[in-house]
């Protein structure tokens, strides 16, 4: 288990109260978001076991604090760019659970009516500008969206999420340099869950912290945070957004976290050392945050009410998706070109 280096930030969190800089309302949002991501992802896994989720899927179980913290700190109009492990980031922007599960189940009620699938969740109206399944591809794309904001004088930020494995591909380095040189309002968020796919990231990376230890190469501050503590994530995100909106350019943030499931549904994660999973579960982000709410004086029944409300949403979404029809065959050839069709000749 990796050691969290940012001890100072953690102790500050523990010492603060419910109505500190984050406040009660936001804390309840952060908690609800994490509960929703946990339950929706767990449901996606259950539906896969029932053979109702087809194709592949890459779950974020254990990584909820990163998605919740960054999304809750965003403003409407801010843009998210995700990877194939993008369910959590999509849900965290407020996309309905039914739309996400529907896409995973390849139904007509899915976000993209089954044309994209689990790895490409997109909801432009929520600022989710796509989930990209080619490692590294979306870092330069996020730069371009940030360039538009800079050029037009807009105040939105582009936030790009990726795993530790992405830090070893060329597009990562091209995007970092490009974003710094052009001083773009883009935030690069590395979710370091310790494994690129099946291989420990440390076995294949020249530095210990794959994103944070590269920041200096691009003149950026080294930011390494506890990605299992939503308060820490929220504060780091808020600071980075503020800097970007003020014209201060990009940030690179490495969040230490852990995924409970394998890389994808095909992976039983047998490569993990014994006890590692259990050790990380002791610092489970949802559990940790639930305890903090109680410590700050939030009543047990208020917490339970949130959990029940989310449970009802996920249950209702599941039933709606099971009842939803498959997509009609006539969408096979729509939306290849802007005219709505696929004609390549006259």
């Amino acid at each position, binding site marked *: 288990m990796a050691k969290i280096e940012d001890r100072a930030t953690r102790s500050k969190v523990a010492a603060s109260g419910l109505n500190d800089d984050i406040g009660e309302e936001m804390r309840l949002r952060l908690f609800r978001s994490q509960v929703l991501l946990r339950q929706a992802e767990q449901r996606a896994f259950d539906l896969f076991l029932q053979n109702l989720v087809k194709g592949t899927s890459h779950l974020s179980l254990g990584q909820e604090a990163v998605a919740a913290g960054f999304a809750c700190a965003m403003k409407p109009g801010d*843009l998210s*760019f995700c990877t194939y492990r993008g369910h959590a980031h999509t849900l965290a922007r407020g996309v309905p659970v039914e739309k996400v599960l529907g896409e995973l189940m390849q139904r007509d009620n899915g*976000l*993209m*009516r089954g*044309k*994209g*699938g689990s790895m*490409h969740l*997109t*909801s*432009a*109206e929520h600022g989710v*500008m*796509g989930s*990209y399944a*080619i490692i*590294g*591809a*979306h*870092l*330069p*794309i*996020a*730069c*371009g*969206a*940030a*360039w*538009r*904001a800079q*050029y*037009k004088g807009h105040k939105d930020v*582009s936030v790009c999420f990726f795993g530790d494995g992405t830090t070893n591909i*060329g*597009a990562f380095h*091209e*995007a970092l*340099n*490009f974003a710094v*040189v*052009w001083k773009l309002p883009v935030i690069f968020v590395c979710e370091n869950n310790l494994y690129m796919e099946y291989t420990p990231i440390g076995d294949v990376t020249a530095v210990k912290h794959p994103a944070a230890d590269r920041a200096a190469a691009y003149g950026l501050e080294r930011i390494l945070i506890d990605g299992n503590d939503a308060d820490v994530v929220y504060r780091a995100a808020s600071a980075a957004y503020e800097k970007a909106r003020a014209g201060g350019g990009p940030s690179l943030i490495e969040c230490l976290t852990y995924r409970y499931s394998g890389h994808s549904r095909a992976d039983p994660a047998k490569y993990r050392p014994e006890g590692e999973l259990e050790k990380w579960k002791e610092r489970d982000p949802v559990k940790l945050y639930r305890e903090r709410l109680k410590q700050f004086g939030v009543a047990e029944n208020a917490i339970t009410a949130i959990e029940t409300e989310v449970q009802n949403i996920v249950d209702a979404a599941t039933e709606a998706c099971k009842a939803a029809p498959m997509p009609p065959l006539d*969408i096979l050839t*729509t*939306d*290849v*070109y*802007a*005219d*709505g069709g*696929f*004609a*390549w*000749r*006259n």
Partner: protein
Amino acid sequence: MAELTYRDAVARGIAQEMTRDPDVVFLGEDIGKAGGVFKATVGLYEQFGPLRVRDTPISEQAILGAAMGAAMTGLKPIAEIMFSDFFAVCFDYIANEFGKSRYMSNGQLKCPLVVRTGNGAGSRFGAQHSQSVENWCMMIPGIKVVAPSNPRDVIGLMAAAVRDPDPVIFFEHKSLYPTKGEVPDGEIVDRLGAAAIARPGKDATILALALMVPRALVAAERLKAEHGIDCEVVDVRSLVPLDTQTILGSVARTHRLFTVEENPRLCGWGAEIVSIVADEAFYDLDGPPVRITTPHIPLPAADILEDVALPTVDRIVERVRRSMQS
């Protein structure tokens, strides 16, 4: 009407669109202060300033990715990839991103951008700076592909590409940059997906693209003068969308089909067109379609080798004559 080089037409075409629409922005390596390594973008930096004409690092993935992100969110970027051979280092965007985001998102995302690039041989640059790679792009659903052969078309097709709501790959031929042509005054706007009959004829149809168009035209004059064979030369101009009606119409009149392709033999654009003609106009043909291409080789650097690799006027004349007289 003024005489303009193909090179100057590039800058004029971009300037026309940047003047019209403040959301048109331009990025690439050495395009701004340096005016482009082929001097095809001279003056744009001075005219439109550093916010709209932006020099980039040597980062082709960053260039195409940034263009896509800007296009998705409201700008109309023109990105330059200096040599089309370099598509291979940023091909993810061309093959996996530009043309798929609209489809995968069920129409939520758009990608209205132009990638312009120096394509083709004739500069003695060797195998990695001379290729004709339009067929790499033609095979990918969701993107459009054009390749102008003269200065007027450079401006008109550039305008059409910039105004098009889909991603367009714009192939400029490096060996055509110094060539001159008459260009009308004022705004020029063409449309994508329209071939042009560059020379009418009744005996055979010769399809050509970019640098092969002027060669096909010279060959047609010689075939007429020396062998009495009257060839119709069709400048294909746009590979996607493909103007099959003009092509099929020409074949229906001449009953013979030749393609002149700079690309190496396998999977060249002519192969697709020959297959369409075989499917849909087989009984219009009086003889087998003939593809005249570069052999299936990497391109050599030496001038005497490169000159014989590409379809030459002599080779076009000889191949058409032999086929027509057999």
